[in-house]
């Protein structure tokens, strides 16, 4: 493919929009995996669960998918607390959280997928908002609202979480538990309670990401599988516990994928994007925004 400035600009812009979706999917994992060291491999499946409930509730209430995603987030927060309680009781408390904890979340993922098939069937589900088929054009740049609105929504959610983590006492406690859980006990704070709360927040974020996903594409029970590798890669590339790093890595991932697809074909996209991950880790093993040990 010959070089064309318009193609390059559109590749970068569409990559940024795609990165917005990736950021939505990876932000919850930045909390659970990055801050709490819980390898929640079921996170994309929980995002898809959020997408299905958005479709059902949104169709029933006649509301925009993103509004429904916000409204249902407290339910997912409670659901997340339930999952963490089980994980803590059976694995973390016994010190079995590494391999057996991973197996636990694998199990959760499979149960969710089969559960979604049983509950909703295997067919694709969708809920198109009114702007789903509108594309803004600024010069030669195309901005499909199907991608733009979920991207902005994701940035707003992550921004809100960032403020909460840096300005509230509980948010600071979550940041502290990521650094040294035992030190928290010395300050009369129960680290398990803080971790429970943080995990609940991560699952609430999965619900919001589900809303963003429904706007971008129809969903089916196995839709989450496509995102597993990407969200973990973004989380690691961003620096694990860093939300700005998560956003930067997600945008970088999206841009690299789409520019590669434009000029070299989509077959190369994943290889080049994951190649960038290796490159970043070679020069900054702690990730883009991570702190060196």
């Amino acid at each position, binding site marked *: 493919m010959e070089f064309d400035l318009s193609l390059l600009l559109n590749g970068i812009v569409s990559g940024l929009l795609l990165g917005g979706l990736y950021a939505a999917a990876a932000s919850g994992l930045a909390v659970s995996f990055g801050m709490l060291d819980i390898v929640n491999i079921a996170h994309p499946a929980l995002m898809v669960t959020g997408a299905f409930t958005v479709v059902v509730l949104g169709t029933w209430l006649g509301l925009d998918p993103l509004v429904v995603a916000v409204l249902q987030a407290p339910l997912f927060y409670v659901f997340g607390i339930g999952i963490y309680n089980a994980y803590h009781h059976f694995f973390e408390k016994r010190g079995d959280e590494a391999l057996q904890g991973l197996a636990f979340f694998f199990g959760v993922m499979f149960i969710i997928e089969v559960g979604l098939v049983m509950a909703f069937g295997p067919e694709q589900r969708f809920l198109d908002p009114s702007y789903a088929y509108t594309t803004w054009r600024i010069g030669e740049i195309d901005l499909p609202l199907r*991608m733009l609105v979920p991207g902005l929504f994701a940035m707003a959610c992550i921004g809100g979480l960032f403020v909460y983590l840096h300005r509230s006492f509980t948010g600071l406690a979550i940041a502290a538990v990521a650094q040294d859980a035992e030190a928290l006990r010395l300050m009369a704070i129960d680290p398990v309670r803080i971790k429970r709360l943080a995990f609940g927040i991560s699952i609430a974020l999965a619900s919001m990401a589900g809303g963003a996903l429904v706007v971008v594409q129809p969903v089916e029970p196995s839709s989450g599988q496509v995102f597993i590798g990407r969200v973990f890669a973004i989380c690691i590339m961003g620096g694990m516990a860093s939300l700005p790093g998560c956003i930067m890595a997600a945008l970088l991932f999206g841009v690299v994928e789409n520019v590669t697809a434009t000029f070299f074909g989509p077959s190369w996209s994943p290889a080049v994007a994951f190649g960038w991950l290796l490159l970043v880790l070679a020069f900054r093993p702690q990730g883009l925004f991570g702190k060196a040990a």
Partner: protein
Amino acid sequence: MRNIGRRDFGRLALASAVAGAGVSAGVFPALAQGANPIRIGFSMSLSGGLAGNGRAALAAQQIWASDVNAKGGLLGRPVQLVFYDDQTNGGQVPGIYTKLLDVDKVDLVTSPYATAMIAPAMPVVMQRQMCFVTILGAGVNTTFKYDRHFNMNVVGDNMKETFAKGFLDIAGTLEPKPRSIAILAVDNDFAQRAAESARFLARQRNIRVVYDRSYPPSTVDFTPTMRAIQAARPDLIYIASYPPDSNGILRAASELRISAQMFGGGMVGPQLAAFQAQLGPILNNLVNWDIFSVEPTMNFPGVTEFLTKYREVAAKEQTDVLGNYIPPYAYAQMQVVEQAVKRVGKIDQAALAADMHSQVFDTIIGPVTFSASGEWAHERNLLVQFQGITDGDLERYKRPGAKVILYPPNLKSGTPRAPYGTPA
């Protein structure tokens, strides 16, 4: 970490057994049925990526079993389906067929849905020398060369020279004559064979290939790919894609206002009700491969009655509500087994295979004959065009006129409209 003891292992085994039985609902009806049934075993994708088509196929096969049993069964014995969920995982399939043949001791086996699930079953089935009627495989027997394999698929023996023929034949009738083509295919066996056919036939007709790429199944955003195709300015756009991607490709094409003399090819997805409901007018003028349409030229005896029954159960089974794609073929697959057993008069795998090689089968999708390799003796790839679609209302797909057949000539029910990408 604690070691797994013998007692733990026993608990795990029990849990596995319970979990397995839970997804193999076909075992339970076995207990309720009369004595000495003819048992037909298969695996089917009831969860995972192919579950949409797998569940639709199963619903059709269950309707067939119910129809046959209502008429007194086969050879005077009731028919019983024994099936397990392969979870769209080819790795599960050999184990399932081993269990069906060695433990469940079924009398006959049929296949799971499509190439990726059929191929892993072949070695097990061949080892037991079972007659094997498959559904929607693509060239599986090219490798195995098994003389008891029969495939219910319209593609026939020579996919390379025939699959894209209809698309390019229709393109040849357009004015001005198309001179260039873009080809995009997902990285899987079926799509790559479809793309190979388009590439081969385009070169044969001096149509210049200006874009020829594959994409991985994990692709999320098709905007850059479609933009690159747009930049190549092809007259024809030939896509070979699978369901989740087909949606993204068509939406990206719509957002970028892509126009071409013809757009479509071998996309899997637009045949399904969920796509038709969501994409509505975006489908207008799409020319795509298909296997069935409710046009008068395909109103074969029994198909309307079957579709009426299917649509009654589809909503309850949470599967494709229209049934215009796989279900008639799944029913016909079982009709082939039924007619062969009736003619042979006993369960004899060699005799059944000989019968299938030599006889014509009257099915709800028309008469079927098999070639020496077990594919259809005469290919019947349909090229249909969506016409006059104004919204996502599915009722129109129950009547002729929405999915007009352009190819083959003997089933043609309308004339092509061009270009793709203009308002209906």
